[in-house]
């Protein structure tokens, strides 16, 4: 067993200040917790603290994780997590900036495991980073939870995963859900266009969406897809190109500042009064659009997260605590990070270990399990029990009297938007969703 008495436990939690963000961008920083237990459980938390993904995703995710970690150590979480610590141990965390690309992240991961001596790792927003970390986690036999990345290839590229888990949904669920929402609420839409950031996420999302549309709305015609550069900022020309095609629907998987900029510009230019936008990650802008998205714009939250969280004790507690600390309701990245930390607590508490659970014990506890979360009950039902199966929700943005809300929300069960275990997702869509269960 490791001599955990030698580990420093910092009294103050991180983030929230730009100074700490700048420090984190050049290395590793401590995060945590009150120090009362003799032993502690050390988790590496990897999220964007710098770069374009930090503001809308990385920092809210760190803030969401921080709130749950603090409550775990205080024993103030609602049931069923109202016991102090993880498996009775103080939860200590080391936060690492995800910026820098997959090669750097593999180095950081090895550093976390071999030098920081962490007991588990939670992290990764970027699909590229997830794909790079998956095999390394298996090689190093380290219990690892991917909390946000959306690539459907994560478990296609790991044969028989043992240590890698994902507690969020993949991009296939986002886009099958988007197509189902359109088929139900906009069945007369004929001309479909898109705008996606020009990298793997955008290209994969558009492929999954168009495949699903071919099955669910075969009369609809794909008329255009724009592929601007990541963090381009201004979309004037792309908006003109979309307007000339007179679309009924504009699909976009753009995220963060890019998504918000495009929406505001397209609104001013009138594109969004000519066509309805469906934004698969739009929920992160729910409380930031400030009326710059027209009412009726369709938003997704990559699952039942953020504004789509169901009402339960955990989600109510999480929302209240987050609002009290940060003055705004949690967006979906914050909820997803909170869910991953809850999964860790569930696995540790259920492991039956004495002291610090091993990666094998944690993996055995989480594999195929069902646990409660801010998003409802999570079933680890895919990829041999390593991938979460959850509903996908979409709704329409409405802004009135300075308040934003989601209306006409529809949820689709996990079995309705995700391929059955062992199925290639694209093949599943092309074959007409065999085995689908939308009840």
């Amino acid at each position, binding site marked *: 067993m490791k001599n955990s008495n030698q580990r420093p436990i910092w009294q103050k939690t991180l983030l929230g200040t*730009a100074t700490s963000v700048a420090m984190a961008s050049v290395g590793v920083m401590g995060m945590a917790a009150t120090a009362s237990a003799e032993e502690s459980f050390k988790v590496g938390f990897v999220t964007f603290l710098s770069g*374009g993904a930090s503001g809308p995703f990385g920092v809210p995710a760190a803030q969401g994780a921080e709130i749950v970690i603090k409550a775990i150590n205080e024993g103030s979480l609602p049931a069923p997590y109202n016991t102090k610590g993880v498996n009775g141990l103080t939860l200590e965390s080391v936060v690492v900036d995800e910026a820098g690309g997959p090669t750097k992240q593999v180095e950081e991961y090895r550093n976390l495991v071999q030098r920081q001596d962490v007991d588990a790792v939670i992290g990764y927003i970027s699909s590229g980073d997830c794909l790079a970390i998956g095999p390394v986690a298996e090689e190093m036999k380290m219990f690892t939870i991917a909390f946000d990345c959306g690539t459907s290839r994560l478990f296609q590229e790991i044969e028989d995963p043992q240590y890698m888990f994902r507690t969020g949904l993949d991009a296939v669920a986002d886009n099958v859900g988007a197509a189902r929402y359109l088929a139900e609420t906009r069945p007369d839409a004929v001309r479909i266009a898109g705008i996606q950031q020009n990298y793997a996420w955008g290209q994969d999302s558009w492929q999954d969406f168009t495949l699903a549309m071919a099955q669910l709305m075969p009369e609809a015609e794909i008329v255009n897809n724009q592929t601007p550069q990541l*963090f381009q900022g201004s979309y004037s020309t792309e908006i003109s190109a979309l307007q000339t095609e007179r679309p009924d629907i504009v699909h976009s998987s753009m995220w*963060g*500042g890019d998504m918000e900029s495009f929406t505001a510009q397209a609104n001013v230019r009138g594109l969004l009064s000519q066509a309805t936008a469906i934004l698969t990650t739009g929920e992160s802008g729910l409380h930031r659009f400030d009326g710059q998205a027209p009412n009726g714009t369709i938003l997704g939250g990559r699952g039942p997260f953020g504004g789509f969280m169901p009402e339960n004790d955990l989600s109510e507690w999480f929302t209240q605590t987050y609002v009290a600390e940060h003055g705004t309701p949690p967006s979906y990245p914050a909820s997803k990070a909170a869910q991953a930390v809850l999964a860790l607590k569930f696995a540790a508490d259920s492991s039956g270990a004495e002291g610090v659970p091993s990666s094998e014990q944690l993996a055995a506890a989480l594999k195929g399990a069902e646990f409660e979360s801010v998003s409802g009950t999570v079933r680890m039902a895919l990829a041999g029990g390593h991938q979460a199966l959850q509903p996908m929700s979409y709704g329409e943005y409405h802004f009135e009297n300075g308040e934003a809300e989601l209306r006409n929300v529809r949820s689709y069960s996990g079995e309705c938007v995700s391929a059955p275990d062992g199925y290639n997702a694209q093949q599943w869509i092309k074959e007409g969703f065999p085995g689908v269960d939308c009840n």
Partner: protein
Amino acid sequence: MLTVWAILIDGFIYASWLFLVAAGLTVIYGVMRILNMAHGSLYALGAYAAASALGWYYSGGGENLVMAFAIIAASAILIGALTGLAIERGILRLMYGRDEILMLLITFAVLLILEDVMKLIWGTTPYFAYQPYAALGRINIDVLTVSRYDLLVLVVSVVIGVGLWFWLERTKIGKILRSIIHDREVSEAMGVNVRRMFTITFMIGATLGALAGGITAPIISVVPGLGIEVIVLAFAVVVTGGLGSITGAAVGAVIVGLARATSIHTMPELELFIIYAVMAGVLIFRPHGLFGQVIARKI
């Protein structure tokens, strides 16, 4: 026909923005022979300053559009001039006479430092200052629409371009600067205070960069890393037109803008490729760019 109109309108609008971004960069290189990588940070600083000032103005109940534009200009010019002065006086003046590559590396270091300084000041959350962009509305042309703010950027770009030309070609200080461009040593021997002219030039170039950022702020979300994205594009434009040439920057911006618009309307997947293909194509036939001048090496 609609697509042709769209390409022309979008191409010139994008070109005007490109020129705004590239003008300061090419002025500094033309006079000082410094490829200023920190220009991207000056652009980002201008954007952050304008977005913050606009946020302050609108949250205080401000509604006057003219006042909003005055705030954009004042905040961007102020931060650009002061930062430019600090960089030139604090760092560059100690390095004059060094190799161009070394100067490039120094300004790259300044860019990285300023990126972190901006994170310290503004954090990582995106800033929006969309009110002026939204307030100006749009013009409808058949199914196409054009933002009036984009047209305003075009006008500002033309004004700045003409102003720069007038300053360099028709004023006394312009004549002095041109003499420095032609021969720094002879100018100095003739009594020109070259170092002072360098300070003025760098401040003007930095202010132009910050002004470009300030004008762009109401269109985009202002986020960390903004300056790094922009500097690559600005380089593509000034290299295409010829380093140090204002006319070259303008022509380069128009060529790149039209090529990009054509690609987006006809082959959107080539949007990025086309910008650098144009640059590479020009450099194959004119290694110093369209308006770049071959400078004889002194022995």
